[in-house]
């Protein structure tokens, strides 16, 4: 399940969905979730708001493609990927990824794969507002390294 939305998400509802029989027909018992939040209190610089822009259409296609790749690579149920757009405040939830598998290692890897690819392939852009004004965030080399490692990694 893929959703790009301005509304907040409820992790309890999503957890029910990831474990529900229609989504998880084999009753996979290892469930990994990742939630990314707007940093709540930054010691160096107070972030007062975050604005998330995206490319409607391409975003959903990219996330569906990442989800599909993960399902081809690991024995997992259909992942849930939720990403918020629009205006967000410190502490707000931004992104949710939920993965169920019979094998915890597969669930961990698939979940990390999805967020690593989302960070480098999905057309979202973050703009931070603080006392100094607005700043578009720069891409991070560490995110690219994280995504690249999945092409080199030949282990299951």
């Amino acid at each position, binding site marked *: 399940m893929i959703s790009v939305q301005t509304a907040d998400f409820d992790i309890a509802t999503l957890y029910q969905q990831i474990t529900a029989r229609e989504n998880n027909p084999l009753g996979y018992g290892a469930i990994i979730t990742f939630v990314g939040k707007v940093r709540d209190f930054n010691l160096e610089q107070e972030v007062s708001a975050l604005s998330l822009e995206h490319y409607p259409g*391409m975003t959903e*296609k990219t996330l569906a493609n990442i989800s599909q790749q993960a399902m081809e690579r690991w024995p997992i149920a259909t992942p849930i990927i939720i990403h918020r757009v629009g205006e967000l405040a410190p502490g707000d939830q931004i992104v949710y990824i939920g993965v169920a598998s019979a094998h915890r290692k597969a669930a961990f890897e698939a979940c990390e794969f999805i*967020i690593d690819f989302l960070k*480098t392939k999905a057309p*979202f*852009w973050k703009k931070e507002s603080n006392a100094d004004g607005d700043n*578009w965030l*720069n891409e991070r080399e560490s995110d690219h390294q994280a995504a690249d490692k999945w092409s080199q990694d030949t282990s299951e």
Partner: protein
Amino acid sequence: MLSIVFFAQTREIIGQGELTLPFESAFSDLEMLRAHLANTNDKWDLALTRDKLLVAVNQEMSPWDTEIKDGDEVAFFPPVTGG
């Protein structure tokens, strides 16, 4: 017609999010289209500096030598920073 869209910094510097353009063989690949648009004025030139600029054709990330055809949607944007 080509449908051209811009996002994030690229959109802000250019000052608009989209435009349409009659397709011409003079810009039949992405690099040629980028150069053509960059030629508009100094702001467009700055916004469309190839360094770090990404481009998608019909909502798929594409290399600069990708050929384009009438009816395509082409998007220019900076590196993505979601998640």
